[in-house]
Structure formats: C-alpha cells, structure tokens
C-alpha cells in the first residue's frame, strides 16, 4: 500500500495540469494514475486555444451548433437560419480567457525550468465567410461580445488573400479573433507530465483505477491494477470516463458522457496557413510539423471510436472548399476522440456537497486543452484552502444533483 496526499485519477491534459500546478506550488506528495484508453480526448485533440472562438461556437463547436440549430428548426416546424451563433455564458468566457492568458508565460516557464516545449504558436482564429449568410452570422457573433471588440479584426477579401493566400478566392472576407492561438496538444500533455515528474510527482502509468475506497462520506484512496493508493484527496480527471469514478466515490451520478469527434489529418505540407481557420463546415489548423488537421464531428455514440467514411468525407469536402490546395495532398490519418460532454457545456469542478477527500476536475467537453491551465490553478487553490481566483459556483456538480 502506498500513501499520498493527492491521487489524481486520469493523466489526460486536465490530470496532468493538476499534477503540474500542485507540484509547482505545494510540497504535497502526489501520484498521477493513468491508463491509455481508446478515445482519450487529449491525444485526439486539435490543440486549439480558441478562447473566443469556442465560446461563440466556432472551432470545434461549429458542427455541433449547426446540428443543434437544425434540430431546433425542425422541432419548431419553421424555417429559421441554419447557422445561428450559440454563445456560452459569461462565466465560461472568463474561465476560457483567463486560462488562455496563462499560456505564453507557462510556455516560457516550462521551457526554461523543465526543457519541454508544447509548441505554443500565436495564430489567431479566422472565421471565413463565403456569402451573405456567413456575414450575418459573423455580425451576430461580434455584436454578442461588445466587450471583446478589441480582440476582433474584420478582413475583407483582399486583406484575407494577403494574409492567407491559399484560402479559396471565393471567400468574401473573415473575422479574426486575435487572442486565439494553438499548441501541440500531446506535447502539452507530455510537457505537464514531464514537468510534474521532475517536480517529484509519482507517475503510475498503464494503471487502471478499479475502485474507490471510502469510509462513510470520506474518500480514503483507490484500488488499482498496480495496488492500493491511500490519499487525503482524490482528484477525478477521468475525462469521458469520469462519471463511473464519481459514482464510486460519492454514490451519485453526474451527466458526463462521451461525445465523439472524428478528425482528419493531412500529410506534412509546406506552410500554407498563417493562422487557424474556422468555417461553417469545419475547423482547419496547420500544426507545427506541417500536417493539416481538420475537425471535427460531434456524435453521441457512447464509447465508439470508429471512423466512418461519411463523416470523413464531409470534413474533407468542407476543408477542400476552403483550402483547394488540399486536393493535391493525401489524408494521412483519421481518428476519433471522446470529449467529456456535459448538458450545459460547462465543466464540473471542485468539491461535492457532503463528500470529503474528493474533487472534480472533469466535464471539459471541447475545451480541455484551452482550460487545462486555469483548471490546474483552481484545483491547486482548492487543495491549499486559498480563495479561488474565479467563482466556482457555476461549475459545481451541485447544479446537477437533486435537492
């Protein structure tokens, strides 16, 4: 049996971020337990830090909201524009933007102290407009966030052509969210993990948590395939698998469920994109090694991680429409990841009423990479009993529990 102050269940980007911030800011004894399951969202991610883009339903949300609007339109029995911006509440903007602001310094800090590089790139996120409907949509987005006007640039067709010459000449312009950037997602996970290891965190890899040990309402530790781990606090960072662990720890259930996203990746190409791109069909990001990543679908199919030709075709066609040069390239890989979705699209963070020795750090849906930094910081504040830098009330699991 091993004894720790903190056991983190789940070594994806959230668990690894918690391990890093806790190990950087405290002297606690920490174990990070991870098993790589198919569909692990951190490795499947695109690595966009699209704080505004995701908050207004672009990027990863594009297909999601297109589907949502279509369903609403059908339910109402009347024609409403298929694409309407879907804006998340203010608390999410704050959460996402605060996290986003942390990356430049975090990148520097990890590079200098730990020799790891998660390839932070200042890219902006451009929403490409093909027609008048798209322009109306862009107008609606910008008018919904007047306080962020200084983060938005409007580009006409000519400016767009100058900045992104490979984008189709059919585009009539774009809006650019200048504070939205990108990282290499698996390098970010690896950077947090390696830095945490250097800070003394014990990595317990290839290990599955099989059950939670409780005494009354207090969590005492976990049983795993590598033995028993006692702890003062268990942090649930189990991604799409978080509900099972939550249930074992608390006896309750919470609505965290897998939301499948298929992704298409091109072969390496010379640099053809200066920034990240979102259209009303898909998002497109050229990664640090030249590959072009196209995402992503939003499907509720349980833990299924298969690729399907229809979805890959849709994504590819959307991308070729925007970036015709892709027709000269090949699809090198496709995969599917499982986002940890919640009904209100907000994460589930912090304590559970009536349960001791347990914290949630889950339900990050489409934005785990982006919001991992603030999550690591908030969890560290909770563990050390400091006031949290953001109000956690809207993110408490209490919102889903009865009574």
């Amino acid at each position: 049996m091993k004894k720790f102050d903190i056991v983190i269940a789940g070594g994806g980007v959230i668990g690894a971020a918690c391990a890093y911030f806790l190990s950087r800011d405290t002297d606690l004894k920490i174990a990070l337990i991870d098993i790589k399951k198919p569909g692990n969202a951190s490795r499947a991610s695109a690595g966009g830090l699209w704080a505004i883009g995701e908050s207004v339903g672009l990027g990863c949300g594009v297909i999601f909201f297109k589907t949502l609007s279509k369903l609403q339109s059908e339910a109402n029995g009347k024609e409403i524009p298929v694409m309407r911006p879907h804006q998340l509440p203010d608390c999410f903007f704050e959460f996402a933007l605060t996290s986003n602001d942390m990356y430049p310094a975090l990148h520097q800090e990890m590079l200098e102290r730990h020799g790891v590089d998660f390839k932070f790139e200042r890219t902006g996120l451009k929403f490409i407009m093909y027609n008048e409907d798209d322009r109306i949509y862009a107008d609606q987005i910008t008018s919904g966030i007047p306080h962020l006007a200084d983060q938005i640039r409007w580009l006409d067709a000519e400016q767009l052509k100058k900045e992104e010459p490979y984008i189709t000449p059919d585009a009539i312009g774009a809006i650019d969210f200048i504070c939205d950037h990108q990282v290499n997602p698996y390098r970010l996970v690896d950077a947090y993990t390696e830095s945490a290891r250097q800070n003394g965190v014990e990595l317990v890899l290839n290990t599955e948590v099989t059950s939670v040990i409780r005494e009354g309402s207090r969590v005492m530790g976990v049983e795993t395939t590598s033995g028993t781990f006692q702890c003062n606090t268990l942090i649930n960072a189990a991604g799409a698998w978080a509900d099972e662990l939550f249930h074992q720890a608390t006896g309750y259930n919470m609505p965290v469920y897998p939301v499948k996203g298929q992704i298409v990746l091109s072969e390496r190409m010379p640099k053809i994109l200066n920034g990240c791109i979102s259209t009303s069909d898909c998002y497109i990001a050229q990664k640090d090694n030249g590959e072009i990543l196209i995402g992503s679908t939003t499907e509720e199919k349980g833990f299924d991680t298969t690729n399907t030709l229809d979805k890959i075709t849709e994504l590819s066609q959307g991308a070729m429409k925007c970036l015709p040069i892709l027709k000269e390239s090949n699809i090198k890989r496709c995969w599917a990841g499982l986002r940890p979705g919640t009904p209100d699209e907000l994460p589930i963070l912090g304590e559970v009423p009536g349960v001791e020795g347990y914290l949630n750090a889950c339900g990050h849906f489409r934005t785990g990479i982006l919001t991992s930094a603030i999550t690591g910081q908030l969890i560290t504040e909770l563990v050390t009993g400091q006031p949290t830098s953001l109000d956690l009330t809207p993110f408490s699991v209490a919102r889903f529990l009865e009574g």
Partner: protein
Amino acid sequence: MSDLYPVIIVGGGPAGTAAAAQLGKFGIESEIIEEASKIGGVIYRGPLRNTATLPHLDDNLKRSMAALQTRYENQRANIKLKLNTRVLGPEGKSKLLLNNDEVLNTIDYQELILATGCHERSVPFAGWQLPGVMLMGGVQLQIKSGLVKPGNRMALVGTGPLLPLVACQLHKSGVEVVGVYEASQFSKLAREAVALLNKPKLTLSGLSMMGYLKKHNIPFHYGWGVVKAKGEQKLSQLVVAPYNEQWQADTQKSKTIDVDSVGVGYGFVARSQLAMLLGVEHSYSNVSGNVPELDKWQHSSVNNVYVAGDSSGLLGADAAICEGQIAALRIAQNRGKLTAQQATQQASKIIKKLDRIKRFRYGFDRFSTRQVGLMDLAEVDTIVCRCEQTTRGQIDIAIAQGVKDITSLKMRTRIGMGDCQGKTCSSYAIDRLHQAGCTENVGVIKPRFPLDPIPFAMLEEHV
C-alpha cells in the same frame, strides 16, 4: 447463422487461397481481397512472367504449392477475387473500407479471415539508408521478377535460412556474391539438430545449398555481421566484423569489402496493422513482433475474425496453408456444413502437420534470436524513423528522461508517427525499450486509420 455474405479473406497468399479453397469444398462462397494484380502472395510475386513456376523454392514446398493451386482452381466457382485492392481499415462496425484501383468503396463482412502476411524487420546501422542497402525480401522480389539484378557485387548479412537460399539465387542470377555473414555461431546451429530433423528433407536441401555455395567458392561466415555501410551517393563499401555470442562486433578485427549492394536479413514481422485496427488482442513475440492471440482454430479475440499465415506469427508458406485450412474448417462448422466432431477430426491431421513445422521452425528461431549487440549498430546520429527523421540519439535522451513505453516515446520523439505507421522503426524502438529494462507495458505503435494515405481528391465527388 445465415449465409448472407461470402467469407471475406484479406490477402491472397498461401493462407488466404488455402482458406478459400477449403471453404469452397463445403460450398461456402468467399471473396479474396488482394493488393497485387494477381493472387499468390509474395512467395509467387513476379510481375511479368508465368509465376506458376517456382525455381526459388525447394521441391517439397513446390509440390505443396502446386497442390494448393489445383485445389484453388477446382473451387474457383465459389471464390470471388478483388485484385488491386488495399484495405484501408474498418468502416463502422462490420465493414471494411477499400481502395480498389483508386476508387473508395466498402464491403460488408460476417466472417473475416486476415491473411495479411509479414513485412521485413528493419535494423538501423550507420549507412543503412544508402541506395544499394536492401532488405532481403526486397532482394528476393527483384530476383523473382526476373528483370532486375539487385547488384553486381553483393554481400549478404543477417541470420537464418534465407541467407544461403538468397545467396544461391543471387549466384544463379549472375551476381558475384563476395560473402555471406551469419550473425550466429555455427555451434549454436548444431545445438538445434534435433529440431531440424522434424523436416529432414528441408534440412537436407539446406545442406545442399551450403554445398552449392562451397562449390562456387562463396564464403559463408558464421559469427560475423555488419558494422556499417559506406559510400557517397550510394553504397560502395561494407564494414563487417566478427560477432560474439551477444552479436557485439569486434571492430578491432573488422574488414572493409567493396560491394555495390548488400542484402540485410534479420527476419520478418507479422503484418498485424489491420487486425489491431479491428481490435484484435495481440501480444508481443520476439520473433514475429505483435502477433494476435488466437485459439487453436485461428480465431481471434474479436468474434468471427480469424488470422492465418505469417500475419499470425512467422512460420512460412506450408504452415500458412495449414492455418488457412483450419480457419476454414471452423467457419464451415459454424455455418452448419460440418459437425463439431467432423471439424475436429479433419483439423487434427492438419494441426499435427503444423506442429511438426513449428518444431522445425522454432529451432531456427532459437538459432536466430536477435542479440543485444545489434542495438549498438545505430550511431547517435543514425536515423531510426525515416518518416519523422528521428535519430537514435533522440531516443536515448527520451529514455534517459524516464520514458518507459512506446506511446510516450512516440509523443516525445515523433517516432512512428509518419506515413508508414511505424513499420520500419517500431521493431527497433521496442527492442531499445527492452534493452533499457522496460519489459512491462511497453505497448505498441498503434496503427491508425487509414492504413494507406487517401488522396483528398478521392473524396471530392464522394457522397
């Protein structure tokens, strides 16, 4: 079970065609998906000649291949062929996505027999990427084509029975073979005499090959191997040296020989990418890489998915035929064409034959077990992963930083993330992790969909 779909067989080599012929005997239809323009597999491969003649094979194998061909021809009515077709991976739950002559389509399956064969094990050493340095299978394909002479002055390095065979074939094709270097000691081969007697005729034919080499003054060196390849634009010199029991080269005694081509043969690795994508459980074998976990009927951990031939572990063509037949018998039983007793009875004769081949084969496997000295051939700046240009030095640093499994190594160094999906580098990477003492949960480079790149343009009109 209803007989809605034909049995889908991926791979038209000995295992796949034997399975199809066996199924046909029970009136069960099958469809063979084959990447080449004709069936037969690499044992036949040769683009522009009548490939029914097999001068490169020993007489026994020639006979069993001829018998297989007859059985196959007799059942042609029950066998559909999809040639020039590569399987890109699973599509949804019970379909495969195919690239058939640059057109994408899907095929449904009920039962699947994977007979995808093997690919070569690549061993990186200084200069291994120079033109003129070839793997042994590549050398053989050029000879079998009857059109390409792999070199004028050649050496062969590696281990196992392919070395004398290819040396004879090269000599017959008019290539000057300046030396054959077998990494293991002769005394080690002598220890396997009992195992080799399981296939006395084959052992004799091996001896006759050694006699042929001697007669033609082709030097065969036991306990010698490659150190490095040298040359400006292409190979011009090969450095070889005596190996000790651990295959560590004694570079004090190294020799430099002038050659324009070298064949490198350290064995083959099961081609298990499709099986892995389908979710079949695999385990690691030192000889064959990742091999599927199968029951005695060649049935995998995934319902109705069978694996036969070299893709289930390297045993060669005659064993592949047996395995294809065994899988077919089980399917015939499941489809109600045979009782359990009949199936078991028919299979037991084949299993007995298979066991004899295995005992013979395992003798050679023990003789040829890769030794740790091979790991030292790659120098710090030698490229291990060609697609991503990952060097040995980068791998060493990652391991020194505490990387203990292949997935983390991949994330850290990009090894195995290129177009070939780790076919070239993963053997070395796994051996290297083992060498560093990481023996548990090393993992594998997981294949990704699609197994071959798909041109975006192919999806342009696709709906």
